[in-house]
């Protein structure tokens, strides 16, 4: 038993964060969290605080930090508006199962329920968008609650946990004792073990399948199961399709790597899924963006679902075998059980449809001076040797990134998948910078989403962090514009967007900025950005009305893809990778 010390609640909070290994906290002060901020000064040598410009930025930074590092991110805000500003970021983390602990100040416990100044029922507001949350009214509960919050956030299917701490609990004096052992949570079941007979049944289905496809989701990345997946599919020769958040879980350039599935997945991937006789879903949840119309989804496939969260099993897609367990543990158990097989006819067939229905390969295209987003992302991939940590916003550029930046390594793509939160990229990248100090980080954002949280440029400048920002600027809210073009008769309601001069905007923050309007400027500008210390913003003025192809319309059969109608002269569809 460690030595007990008498400390204030605010000090206990910081002691508890230090005990959890927290290195950095993203936050914004205010009335109800002031005791915690005052106490923070004593811990400045152990925990760095990053002052954001809006609490949503703090939430995304903590989220980006957590996704890039695999550790728990921490965001700090005051009561009322401070806490409600976190909400978008909390929901983002919830949808993508990101471990983040949110700490909010609350009015004094004596004032709870009185509509006091800056009082909001934050545990009520965040109940459906947190894995769990706590209202702490007494100093004696702070240490144990923080301990539980971190444990819940990182264990099982990870997720955000919010701890709302009353101001008087922060001010009161209590006893701090360094925690030992796991917290006692009698009702919490972070994971289950798949029973033997089901593992055997799964192995049997795999052995008997002629046309299997692995669907690799975020769970592969979260479980760190990429190598286990590789051993498994290399033994059984099963091609791997990835969800958006699963990209990087399996090397994109591996011969068995198919690429992304779903709404903007590669055509051959969706065709392979529709023709498969077995789907092996690993750490993914059959989101509607992945399945298309459920009634016609993979009609001739048996389905094995490996998932840590048993409430996901049978939610969208009925499966033949459900293995509720850690995906790494299941792969370890399955690999020795499955037969080594070549499955040459199936792989040859996929290669054939790949040739028939490939999205464009833009390597070595004639340069007519026009700038396509695909060019920018492809060049970024080449110039960073596929090793950069890419943080995207949400929209067309996000899908182009997923198509053209070949992710071979896990945790190198940070993107808001489930919630699709515009404004995510810049703050998430700043957060990721604290997780990966030595890595090259690129933000890829649209002109719309970038403006939602552009104020965090100021944070980047104040903190002296370097991220490179590529704004794919097409003057539209491009993805909505694309839907309007396809499904709303080309009526561009509220999608044309006039933006500020992004170069001047960045310069006003004391940052370096550049503009690119032609393809032949891309390489030199990217190189210049790489060589410049501090955050650099590049305004890429791309084709205004380009669309993301292929596209499965919402609710359509996965094989019913809208294809690029007339490949523009600068974009030729070929199958071959360089």
């Amino acid at each position, binding site marked *: 038993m460690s030595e007990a010390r008498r400390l204030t609640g605010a000090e206990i909070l910081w002691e508890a964060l230090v005990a959890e290994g927290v290195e950095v906290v993203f936050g914004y002060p205010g009335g109800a969290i002031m005791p915690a901020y005052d106490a923070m000064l004593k811990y400045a040598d152990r925990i760095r605080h990053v002052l954001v410009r809006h609490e949503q930025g703090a939430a995304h930074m903590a989220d980006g930090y957590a996704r890039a590092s695999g550790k728990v991110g921490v965001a700090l805000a005051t009561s009322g508006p401070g806490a409600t500003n976190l909400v978008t970021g909390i929901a983002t983390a919830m949808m993508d199962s990101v471990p983040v602990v949110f700490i909010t100040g609350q009015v004094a416990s004596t004032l709870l329920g009185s509509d006091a100044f800056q009082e909001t029922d934050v545990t009520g507001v965040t109940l459906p968008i947190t*894995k769990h949350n706590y209202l702490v009214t007494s100093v004696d509960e702070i240490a144990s609650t923080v301990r539980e919050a971190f444990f819940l956030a990182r264990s099982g299917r990870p997720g955000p946990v919010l701890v709302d701490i009353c101001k008087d609990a922060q001010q009161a004096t209590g006893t701090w004792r360094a925690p030992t052992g796991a917290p*006692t949570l009698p009702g919490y079941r972070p994971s289950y073990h798949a029973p033997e007979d089901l593992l055997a049944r799964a192995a049997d289905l795999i052995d008997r399948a002629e046309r299997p496809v692995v669907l690799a989701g975020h769970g592969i990345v979260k479980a760190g199961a990429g190598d286990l997946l590789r051993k498994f599919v290399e033994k059984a020769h099963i091609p791997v399709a990835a969800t958006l958040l699963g990209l990087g879980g399996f090397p994109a350039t591996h011969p068995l790597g198919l690429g992304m599935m779903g709404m903007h997945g590669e055509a051959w991937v969706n065709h392979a899924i529709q023709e498969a006789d077995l789907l092996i879903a690993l750490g993914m949840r059959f989101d509607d963006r992945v399945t298309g119309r459920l009634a016609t989804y993979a009609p001739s496939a048996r389905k094995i679902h490996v998932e840590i*969260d048993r409430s996901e099993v049978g939610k969208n897609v009925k499966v033949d075998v*459900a293995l509720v367990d850690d995906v790494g543990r299941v792969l370890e158990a399955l690999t020795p059980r499955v037969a080594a097989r070549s499955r040459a006819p199936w792989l040859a067939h996929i290669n054939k449809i790949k040739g028939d229905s490939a999205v464009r390969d833009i390597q070595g295209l004639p340069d007519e001076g026009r700038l396509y987003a695909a060019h920018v992302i492809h060049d970024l991939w080449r110039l960073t040797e596929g090793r950069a940590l890419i943080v995207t916003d949400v929209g067309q550029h996000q899908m182009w990134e997923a198509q053209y930046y070949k992710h071979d390594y896990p945790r190198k793509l940070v993107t808001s998948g489930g919630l699709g939160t515009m404004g995510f990229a810049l703050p998430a990248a700043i957060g990721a910078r604290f997780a990966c100090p030595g890595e090259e980080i690129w933000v890829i954002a649209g002109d719309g989403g970038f403006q939602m949280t552009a104020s965090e440029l100021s944070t980047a400048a104040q903190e002296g962090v370097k991220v490179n920002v590529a704004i794919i600027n097409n003057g539209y809210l491009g993805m909505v514009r694309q839907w309007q073009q396809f499904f709303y008769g080309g009526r561009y309601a509220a999608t044309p967007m006039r933006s500020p001069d992004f170069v001047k905007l960045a310069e006003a923050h004391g940052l370096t900025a550049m503009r690119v309007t032609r393809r032949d400027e891309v390489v030199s500008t990217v190189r210049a950005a790489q060589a410049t210390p501090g955050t650099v913003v590049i305004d890429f003025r791309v084709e205004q009305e380009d669309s993301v192809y292929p596209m499965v319309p919402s609710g359509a059969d996965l094989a019913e893809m809208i294809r690029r109608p007339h490949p523009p002269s600068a974009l030729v569809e070929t199958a071959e990778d360089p």
Partner: protein
Amino acid sequence: MMKTHTFIARVEDKPGVLNRIASLFRRRGFNIASLTVGRTAEPGVSRLTLVIEADEDTARRIEANLYKLVNVLLVEDVTYQPSIARELALIKVRADATTRPRILQVCDVFGARVIDLTAELVTIELTATHDKIDDLVGVLAPEGVLEMVRTGVVAMTRGAPTPISNSSFREINEVPEPQGTSQWPASSTTATLISV
């Protein structure tokens, strides 16, 4: 196929737990037919009986979602287990001197008690199964039911109770789930809810 499912959940007796359960059902669109909550013989543990119209898949998802709530200790779908289910109803019926004997006779047949009686009305208490209360209400309807309140079902399995594991996380994590819980359908469809 839609069916009436009865769940028993034992939960930590902490503020907000009922809200978490209600919020879960609202958010996922599960429809609650009845919900009762009360203390148990174990300190710090409350007990809920939930009656839900759901098909088999939905029932399994409800169970899994309840287990995701950190404060939920144990969930049992007792629909197919030998169980005892009871509900209490207070029914106020118009009853003058002419109709009263008839009503009292009905009460006698149903095993209901008259707990208040005035010149114009009687108030009847019946503790029985949900269906039996429905039957009584049906019989009394022509007499004029003025007011009724029902508690919702409380249920209990027969035989020894399922213990709540008091073990710490580590032990829970190491104990494999009983076979079949990760594979639908989990419950046998042969046993029936025993109505006494």
